[in-house]
């Protein structure tokens, strides 16, 4: 084979280290010299925002199903924090936060510690919002909670529910006006939309992981009014609620990385083609 041919072959077998070096470099550069390109806002994100604006009216009861898990904290942590912040800003609402993943109760406090989720001072624990403990058995647990919210004897901190004022008029899921779920697990997403949104037809919003978003599009907007996926969704949502957040500042780096990666894909394919056809003999 010719010399060019060998070069093409070398390029087509691009080395991991080169790619990683390029990516690292681009991240560092864009982090140090941010350009601040305007971030586009996808329709689904807008739908989620509008839906929450619409349904989180004063006097409404809202369930936030928080399934943020430590492994993918950076995947949908910021997105869910942004939406939660949006919900918490609404006046005169009661919020119940449920957990069906063993890790998620701690992750909620992690979101607060990281200052991603800021709870306004006028929202009092026990009067305006309550944290429920973990309940095992995904599909079963969702169904059980839907049938009777008082299946929890105590809240996360071990206070009996009957000593918590806001729970007096909330009995089953029929008293709930809006559900927001943040999850990276298909099992939880399916269970929630089946056992909660469908069975009691309650407005339902989603914060999923980036790969999950397209696969759950068939439910949007017919069964879930909106959805965001991964860090991009989080960044867009932070723009919408005008919360100068973390995710926004990454958009430059992500843009560059994506551009580079597609460029590399094209190069690899071309060089593979050339090396196959033994092209470039001159």
């Amino acid at each position, binding site marked *: 084979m010719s010399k060019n041919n060998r070069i093409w072959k070398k390029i087509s077998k691009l080395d991991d280290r080169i790619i990683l070096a390029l990516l690292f470099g681009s991240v560092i550069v864009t982090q140090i010299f941010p350009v601040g390109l305007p971030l586009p806002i996808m329709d689904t994100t807008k739908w989620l925002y509008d839906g929450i604006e619409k349904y989180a009216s004063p006097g409404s009861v809202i369930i936030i199903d928080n399934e943020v898990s430590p492994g993918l904290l950076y995947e949908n942590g910021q997105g869910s924090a942004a939406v939660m912040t949006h919900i918490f800003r609404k006046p005169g609402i009661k919020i119940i936060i449920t957990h069906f993943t063993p890790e998620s109760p701690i992750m909620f406090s992690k979101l607060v510690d990281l200052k991603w989720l800021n709870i306004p001072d006028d929202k009092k624990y026990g009067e305006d919002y309550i944290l429920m403990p973990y309940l095992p058995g995904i599909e079963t647990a969702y169904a059980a909670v839907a049938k009777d919210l008082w299946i929890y004897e105590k809240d996360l901190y071990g206070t009996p529910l009957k000593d918590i004022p806001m729970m007096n008029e909330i009995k089953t899921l029929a008293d709930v006006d809006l559900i927001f779920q943040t999850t990276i697990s*298909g*099992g939880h997403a399916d269970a929630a939309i089946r056992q909660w949104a469908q069975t009691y037809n309650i407005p339902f919003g989603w914060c999923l992981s980036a*790969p*999950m978003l397209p*696969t759950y599009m068939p439910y949007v907007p017919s069964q879930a009014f909106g959805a965001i996926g991964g860090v991009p969704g989080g960044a867009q949502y932070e723009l919408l609620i005008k919360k100068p957040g973390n995710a926004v500042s990454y958009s430059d780096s992500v843009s560059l990385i994506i551009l580079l990666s597609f460029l590399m894909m094209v190069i690899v394919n071309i060089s593979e083609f050339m090396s196959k056809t033994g092209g470039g003999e001159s």
Partner: protein
Amino acid sequence: MSLIPQRLANLTLLVMIICIPFIIYYLSKEKKLFLKIRRIAALDAIEESIGRAVEMGRPVHFTTGLAGITDVRAPMTLAGVSILSHVARLCARLNTRLFVTIGDATVLPLTLSTVREAYRVENAMDQYSDDIVFFPSGGYRQRIIQLLQDENCAANIMIGAFHGEAMLLVDGGYRAGAINIGGNPRIQMIPFFVVGCDYTFIGEENYAASIAVSGEPLELSYLGGQDIIKGITVIMIILGSILTSFGITFIQKILGS
């Protein structure tokens, strides 16, 4: 005792989905109906790739994915195992070396017996040894990539439940210059197989292929029953759209929406 009206359509459909397979089974048992699974490109590709491996005198690698048989991903793994028996038989018949890796210890007994049985049926027990199947406990990914490199496999067949690591296995196979054949019903992972593999089982094709190779009449009739329901949904959508275009919302009404 009163039926919840808006769930009538649901109940009807459920009953249909449950009953039709049994009717199909009865019909096919009575020889009134003959079912045959359509060509599945990836399944033919398996034989082709093994043939190629034989010509090159290089081994074949098969993995049943990360999951075991003790959680909801069990059906995916089992589909993989029944395709494994097909692969093992081919390898035994064509007398080429086979490596089987599993992602979860619970699959080990099943895979072992499957492979042994395959070699026994092809009476090639002289080629069989228990270390054809091995469980890379810890570092599943790295061990498989290592194996693909060291043994220089000519075919890398991955059927079962895969997660984030799928792409890396594909990459391993690619680097070893093997034909990649992937199968994974988890839709989030399929694109990675489609871009990387030479042939891919898409979604339910896994189960269909596993039935095609095992050829169990009951399974086959279940599949046939499902196909009828799929046909009905297709007709409903098209008919409904045509009617709706003329302002008749009959289908939506019977579906109770």
